[in-house]
């Protein structure tokens, strides 16, 4: 298993990081070797989701914490960069053009009747401050929540339900107009990032490349982390937390560290997602979105290094296709896929080769079904 995985990683990185952007930049439009700007943008989106999925997997697959709040952190990162992008619209805003916005407020603030820029928006004029906030805001929220939760030894389904409630409360809060983040419509209509036009093909390609680099970095980090002693404790926490605790490890700190790390990874993914998609609104932080991210991991294969990436790309590509081909049946497909994955393929796409080998072995022996190889306890 180990060798093909490394090979796939190197080949995949090469394909995503070098070949696709080159084909986009230098391929003749219309030829077989051309990748359109649309495709690059679409894959940029998929890979942002893949980063999110890797963070979900690090939490759920390797530490046994099913967080239904990863989309909250994803959105918080997105909002942090979105605020900067919003302020950079400046003189290109509709209200400024029609002369109703001398203070250069974001358009939605004019629309909602804010007299001036709220104080907490002002520092976001600086790009580097915003980038810092992309990590700090989700990290802080995760730290506070995680500290309280792990200190009280909340685990298993209770942790899931509480993170779900946290996400729900946060989305209700962001839906409020007076919460100064654009309410229902969120932040949108971005124009420039660091002075570059967000709609230009090369800027989009660079954003895509940045996403791929982040993904590779995150995967490398996870791979390294799992190889260390820390990673071994982490997996031990998943398998039997009490034994680890009684062996003298402060499991709370381990879990808290992973939780914060995953929140930061998700926030970074969100920050790359927003300029590529051009909008962030509270519907991104509903519990449904978090559960969808969990579906990617479950379909791709939890507790495998590359499974979440397969899952995120496969499910989202399927979504892109099914929502146009069979719009009425998409949710049935997604739900059905999920039920089937949980029931029959607990190791997902990444576990297929092993599962096929198992079935073949079973077929040879004609013994009791081995459809469910040793499932890791949740």
């Amino acid at each position, binding site marked *: 298993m180990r060798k093909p995985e490394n090979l796939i990683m190197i080949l995949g990185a090469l394909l995503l990081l070098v070949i696709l952007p080159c084909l986009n930049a230098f391929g003749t439009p219309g030829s077989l070797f051309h990748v359109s700007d649309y495709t690059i943008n679409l894959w940029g989106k998929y890979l942002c989701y893949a980063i999110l999925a890797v963070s979900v997997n690090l939490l759920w697959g390797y530490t046994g914490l099913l967080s239904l709040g990863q989309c909250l952190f994803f959105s918080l990162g997105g909002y942090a960069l979105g605020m900067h992008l919003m302020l950079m619209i400046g003189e290109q805003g509709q209200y400024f053009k029609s002369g109703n916005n001398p203070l250069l407020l974001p358009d939605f603030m004019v629309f909602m009747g804010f007299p001036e820029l709220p104080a907490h928006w002002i520092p976001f004029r600086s790009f580097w401050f915003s980038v810092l906030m992309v990590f700090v805001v989700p990290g802080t929220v995760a730290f506070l929540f995680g500290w309280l939760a792990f200190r009280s030894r909340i685990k298993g389904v209770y942790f899931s339900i509480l993170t779900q409630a946290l996400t729900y409360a946060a989305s209700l809060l962001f839906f409020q107009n007076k919460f100064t983040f654009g309410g229902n419509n969120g932040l949108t209509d971005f124009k420039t990032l660091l002075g570059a036009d967000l709609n230009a093909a090369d800027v989009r390609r660079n954003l895509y490349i940045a996403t791929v680099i982040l993904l590779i970095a995150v995967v490398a980090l996870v791979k390294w982390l799992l190889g260390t002693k820390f990673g071994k404790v982490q997996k031990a926490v998943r398998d039997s937390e009490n034994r680890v605790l009684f062996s003298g490890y402060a499991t709370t700190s381990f879990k808290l560290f992973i939780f914060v790390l995953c929140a930061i990874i998700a926030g970074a993914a969100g920050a790359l997602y927003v300029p590529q998609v051009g909008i962030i609104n509270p519907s991104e932080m509903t519990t449904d979105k978090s559960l969808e991210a*969990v579906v990617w991991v479950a379909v791709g294969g939890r507790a495998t290094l590359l499974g979440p990436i397969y899952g995120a790309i496969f499910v989202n590509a399927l979504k892109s296709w099914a929502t146009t081909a069979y719009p009425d049946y998409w*949710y049935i497909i997604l739900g059905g896929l999920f039920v089937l994955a949980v029931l029959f393929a607990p190791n997902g796409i990444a576990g297929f080769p092993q599962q096929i080998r198992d079935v073949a072995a079973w077929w040879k022996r004609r013994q009791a079904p081995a459809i469910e190889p040793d499932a890791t306890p949740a």
Partner: protein
Amino acid sequence: MMRPVNFLTCLLPALLLWTGFMTLAAAQDPAGDAIRQQLIEAILNEDEEQTDRIEAMAETGSDLAAKVLTQWRAGELFLDTAADGQKILFTREGGQAVRLDTAAAFTPVAPKEMETSSKIRRAIRNALDLIAVASPDAKLRTAAISKLGMTQNTDYLPVLVARQTRETDKDVRKALEEAIAVMQLMDEDDAVCIAAVKKLGEMRSLPCLDLLRAMTTSEEESDEAKAEAKKSVALIEAYSKKVEMAGTVFRGISAGSVLLVVALGLAITFGLMGVINMAHGEMMAVGAYTTYMIQNIFGAGLSLSMFGLGLNIPGMNLTGAAYQSYFVWAIPASFLMAALVGIGLERGVIRFLYKRPLESLLATWGISLILQQLFRLVFGPNNVQVSSPSWLSGSFVVNDVVLGYNRVFVIGFAIAIVLLTWLLLTKTSLGLFIRAVMQNRLMASCMGVRTERVNMLTFGFGSGLAGLGGAFLSQLGNVGPNLGQSYIVDSFMTVVVGGVGNLIGTVCSAIGIGTVDQTLQSVTDPSMGKIITLSSIILFLLWRPGGLFPTRTRSLEG
């Protein structure tokens, strides 16, 4: 085609009969005749005393007078001048002209609308108000008296005082006292005025609060009256706070009952069985849609289109009380329907996942997506209309607190199903098996309990309770494919706050959360109230993960 002769021969006797009947009816009512004459006189003689005569009509207290005066004001009274110069007043009823003096049908020659001046309209209004005061219906009487009182027109005072001596109904007497006191506020005599202020204070009259408040700063009142008004205002304000609080508590308890109805099923499936059923909300939707279908079957029928197939469900076209009773049938139907879906879910998916609770969460979420989309495909993406039966709409008032029937009903309903659940769990052998299996599945199995069957029935029962909740929600809010989604987080929170596996805890937490939520909603706006409630719950659970009544166990993994 029918021959015209035939048609006429049928119509003529019918017309004759009807006319005869009307004449007979008029002739049998000598008092009515007198009122008719009085009315005609009042309407036709356009002299200076006309307004007095109109207002005098009030003393008759007659419905007929009220009806005719209303028609006159609305321009529905006509005057016909016959060939011999005789003036005939008439109204039109169902396209037929009816004489005012004899109540007989006739054919007008040169009809003309009776016009009204503003002076006459005012007189008519006064007369109508006074007629209402004498109305035989106590509720109408109370409303009319309160309205008169609020005008503070002292001209009516003698009428009200006269009425007071004759009135026997308790509520009407109270309204009369209040109205008289309000009028006496305008009295020249300071002593009378002060007495009235005192009286209103003692009566805790909420509608007079603004009036009395105005008095405390008014230039025209004496200092003594102002001081007295201040006292009364303070009294009434304290009372109003109490009423508001009682209202909030009532709304809180009823909101808590809704939560309880919704969360009780979850307390069974999650609390007792430990299955995280994310499709619980969809079980409610199943119940709500079942109610919708039952309603349509009792009414005009229903046609659904599923996957390109049309399905016509014929209706029974019932009306009146039979139709209104649909909800009584919908309650067991939604229980059964949701229980069946729940049993299917348990057999098909959940039974494979008892040892993997996190994965049962994920699988049931997948099911919930599928069910939602099925609702969309079958019933359409929009909300469907479920009308409340008449015996659930309306309200009654106790000490100025408005209690809606449906809200009172939901409280009773919640009590009933909690009681039933409790009886089932503690007094039946099935309940014994359920508790045994939930405490130790393996041991129960060794003792010969058919755990598979008990699991199935328990899950079915929990789902059925969710269906009941859905049937009830259809009476309070919209029924749509997303119905369950809006309650799922709330119901999980309710169960966890109460302490998992503890029914009494669920009851306490539902009522508590409902009351806190309603109180906060009355202080801030609804969505802020919800956010604050939810955040407090999260903080509470972070502090006390076991909830209000944690289950004490020696098990390490408990």
